[in-house]
């Protein structure tokens, strides 16, 4: 029997399109390790004067299984929706939920305070708040003559 993976194909297309369109905003996503993810959470990314707020839909995911990192302006959200042991039984009449790993990456502007990032999960929504850092004062560099 052939293994059909239409969801991951759709995810690929989604990721691909997102990448194309998000470039408009200067928020290019990093290439995603397609083959290792099972699903992609939907996100909103908002910017106001003091911070970036990222909201990601991760219903049914244990907050312990979510890993958020911000390194060199690259925000990575990854984790896993584990299947409860019960659901292994086959008396499903309908099954649309996808289990397994998810992964998303975004590049944020450099002016964020990486140490002050905060993340919490409420009602299946992961909320990540990344404060902007104080604008670095421009340093003028003297050009030495020959």
């Amino acid at each position, binding site marked *: 029997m*052939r293994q*059909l*993976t*239409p*969801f991951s*194909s*759709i995810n690929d297309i989604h990721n691909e399109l*997102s990448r194309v369109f*998000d470039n408009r*905003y200067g*928020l290019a996503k990093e290439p995603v390790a397609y083959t290792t993810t099972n699903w992609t959470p*939907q*996100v*909103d*990314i*908002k*910017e*106001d*004067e003091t911070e970036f*707020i990222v*909201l990601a*839909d*991760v*219903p*049914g*995911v*244990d907050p312990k299984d979510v890993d958020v990192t911000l390194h060199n302006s690259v925000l990575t959200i990854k984790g896993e929706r584990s299947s409860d042991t019960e*659901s292994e*039984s086959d*008396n*499903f*009449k*309908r*099954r*649309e*939920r*996808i289990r397994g790993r998810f992964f998303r990456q*975004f590049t944020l502007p450099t002016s964020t305070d990486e140490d002050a990032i905060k993340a919490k*999960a409420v*009602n*299946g*929504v992961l909320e990540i708040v990344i404060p902007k850092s104080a604008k670095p004062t421009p340093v003028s560099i003297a050009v030495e003559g020959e």
Partner: protein
Amino acid sequence: MSTLDRLTNNFRDTVDYLADGWQELWNRARNSITHFTPHSDSSDNPANTNSWGVLSSELRETENEIEVLMEAPGMSSKDFDIRVEQQLLHIRGSKQFAADRTEGHYHITERAYGSFERVIPLPCEVDEGEAKATYTRGVLELVLPKHKALQPRKIRVG
């Protein structure tokens, strides 16, 4: 086999594969894709939010119960309106922008906001008066006991 034949076969396989995949996806997901109607009073809605959301659900049948799980992140338990009519489970809900979220501008908006309704056919009649609903981690869980007449009855020998 000529190169052309091989190419034709490969092409046909690819098309078949895509068609199968699409069919599979369609069968699995067509019901979970749900339209969200934006709230009329949300003129302050800062983004052109997505009006289609995926509310993936699951239905499991045991001897005495029907169990339904539906992913609906970002709601609160009072935002749901659930009823059963003629073996159809209607789940209505409304998801709003948090009031303090209207300032600033959005770079990406993929999450859907607004009112939605999802109808899930049930495999048998249930006793809706005895139904229980919980909402945890963005997943709505309903336990609907089957109608008494459909539950297996134990007969005690007197």
